[in-house]
């Protein structure tokens, strides 16, 4: 049974892209049949915005997943960014660059802590990044005494709610980030080192790759992208959102997984993530459109994750891939 896996995996590779693609097509058709209003311009713009916001963090999550990690601190970093921007600028656009610099530094620090725990101490990424999530959330509460005050500068609103050529800015940002990530992953030595590290850390180490550095870079990249997403989110809402840092934002993870990035590392590319993001964004907006309550939305999101992975990974259990 185990000998089958290699061959199967190879044959299933094209299906890896096909499944989310056909799923996306299916949802789009279903939306057209049930809720024709889905294709109104305003609604599509909402889908694109959602895709942009989720997408930026999903790219970071993908990089971490490729290196056999997982990043649960994304939501906290986003929240921290909005709080930093609000408290440091209080609506004053002139102070924005300094605030962004501070947020970036905070992002790098958080990414470094994640990386340090995972690489130097061998803490399981799941636990390390969850602990950091709790810690950052706690730091925000202790710092702001629970009441984060301050205005978001107008300059940031173009990033969050602006449009270029009729398409929401966040989507352009996502497109840019995804393009860069795709090139780096597919065409550069850094990308190859990440894949090598993710698929077989020991072999990668033996072949001279400094896997610790590769993994650390992944966490820092993810944290930085979360900072970017935080800026977008702040610009979109135009106000501090106290709720943001309190939710363990799993959308980025769900998108990557739906798209077909493997949790076991080294498998998947940005194309997968982009598809997953598109599918999730369409699903989220369509659920709103259908008027499904919170219960229905959660249930559908769960079913989507299971279905997407199931359809792709059907086949006998392979040893060690659990």
């Amino acid at each position, binding site marked *: 049974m185990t000998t089958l896996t290699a061959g199967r995996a190879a044959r299933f590779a094209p299906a890896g892209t096909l499944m989310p693609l056909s799923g996306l097509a299916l949802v789009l058709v279903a939306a057209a049949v049930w809720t024709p209003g889905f294709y109104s311009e305003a609604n599509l713009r909402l889908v694109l915005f959602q895709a942009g916001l989720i997408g930026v963090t999903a790219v970071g999550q993908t990089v971490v997943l490729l290196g056999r990690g997982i990043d649960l601190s994304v939501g906290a970093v986003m929240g921290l960014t909005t709080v930093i921007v609000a408290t440091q600028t209080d609506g004053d656009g002139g102070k924005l660059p300094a605030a962004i610099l501070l947020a970036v530094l905070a992002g790098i620090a958080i990414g470094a802590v994640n990386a340090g725990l995972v690489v130097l101490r061998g803490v399981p990424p*799941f*636990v390390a990044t*969850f602990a950091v999530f*709790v810690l950052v*959330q706690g730091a925000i509460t*202790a710092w702001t*005494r629970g009441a984060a005050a301050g205005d978001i500068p107008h300059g940031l609103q173009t990033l969050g709610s602006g449009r270029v050529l009729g398409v929401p800015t966040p989507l352009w940002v996502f497109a840019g980030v995804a393009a860069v990530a795709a090139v780096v992953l597919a065409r550069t030595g850094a990308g190859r080192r990440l894949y090598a590290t993710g698929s077989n850390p020991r072999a990668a180490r033996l072949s001279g790759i400094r896997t610790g550095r590769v993994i650390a870079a992944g966490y820092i990249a993810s944290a930085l992208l979360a900072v970017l997403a935080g800026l977008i989110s702040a610009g979109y809402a135009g106000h501090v959102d106290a709720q943001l840092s309190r939710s363990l934002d799993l959308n980025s993870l769900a998108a990557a997984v739906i798209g077909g990035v493997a949790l076991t590392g080294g498998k998947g590319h940005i194309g997968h993530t982009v598809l997953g993001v598109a599918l999730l964004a369409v699903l989220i907006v369509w659920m709103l459109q259908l008027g499904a309550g919170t219960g229905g939305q*959660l249930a559908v999101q769960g079913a989507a994750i299971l279905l997407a992975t*199931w359809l792709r990974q059907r086949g006998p259990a392979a040893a060690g891939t659990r």
Partner: protein
Amino acid sequence: MTAVTAPAGAAPARERLAAALSAAARTGLAAWAIVALLVAVLTVADPGGFWTAANIANVLTATVVLGLVALGQHLVVLTGGIDLSVGSTATLSALLTAMLIDGYPIRTIPTILAMLLLGAAIGVVHGLIVANTRIPAFVVTLSTFYLIQGIAFMISTTPSGQVTRALADVGMRRFGPFPLALAVLAAAVAIVAVLLHRTRFGRHVHAVGGDAAAARSAGVPVNRTLVLVFVIAGTLAAAAGVMLAARATIGSPNAGQGLELSAITVVVVGGASLLGGRASLAGTLGGVALLALVESSFTLLQLPATASDLIRGVVILAAAALFVPRSHRE
């Protein structure tokens, strides 16, 4: 210490320390060491408050729900899997327990049995999917984490139902420093301990987690073991839900939110390897005690609430960073 040691001896000393830490973590000693330290600190800080029977009972009560869920998680982690759905399962079970009993004593026992069956059924589904497909347990249970919570919200978004007084008593009564509910946890611990260390099933669990392929070729029924493990985890999560309902006396659609992360944290703090094959039951229980102690100390010592999340994060982080042994397969 390193300053005192001669430079030549520094490296081995540090290595020995690391090895000692690692061994302490593996056996679960580390978690209990922190628990002991915390108890000492709390004793010094508030001798009058900490050692009262009522306070001890509070700490012990807080271990029950978390302990039940963590036991199930412990088994799943031993097989190299993870169960993210336990919080949602507990929520659904708590909500349904109160709604189905609805104050009728005659329904108490049947409802509890039905809930345990429901948990087992959820476990069967998880186990079958994980055993028969290549979908990682993480993804399977991530999806059911959403799904089951969604179902709970579809059943009711408002708190509803009412448990009987007898069941509420199980959740609240205490004898001196010992809450009655602790008996439930003790029974569960005993069962899991016997299963793990005295039965063939226990050996299979360790074998599957150690190396599934080798286990399979050695004739271990890998699929059956996996299904069973998830069934036990689901049942324990449902039992935790019943206890939640017993303590709350009513059911709410967000009763068990966040339990899954606490449970995983506890298991890891207890020295388990998320790669499977290695976890100490004593360690997991130590983790449970640790978390319960930390939570209760905020109120006991009247620490500023704004710092509580920060302290909580630092404790988890420190415990994880100091005592998580390096994974043996890397």
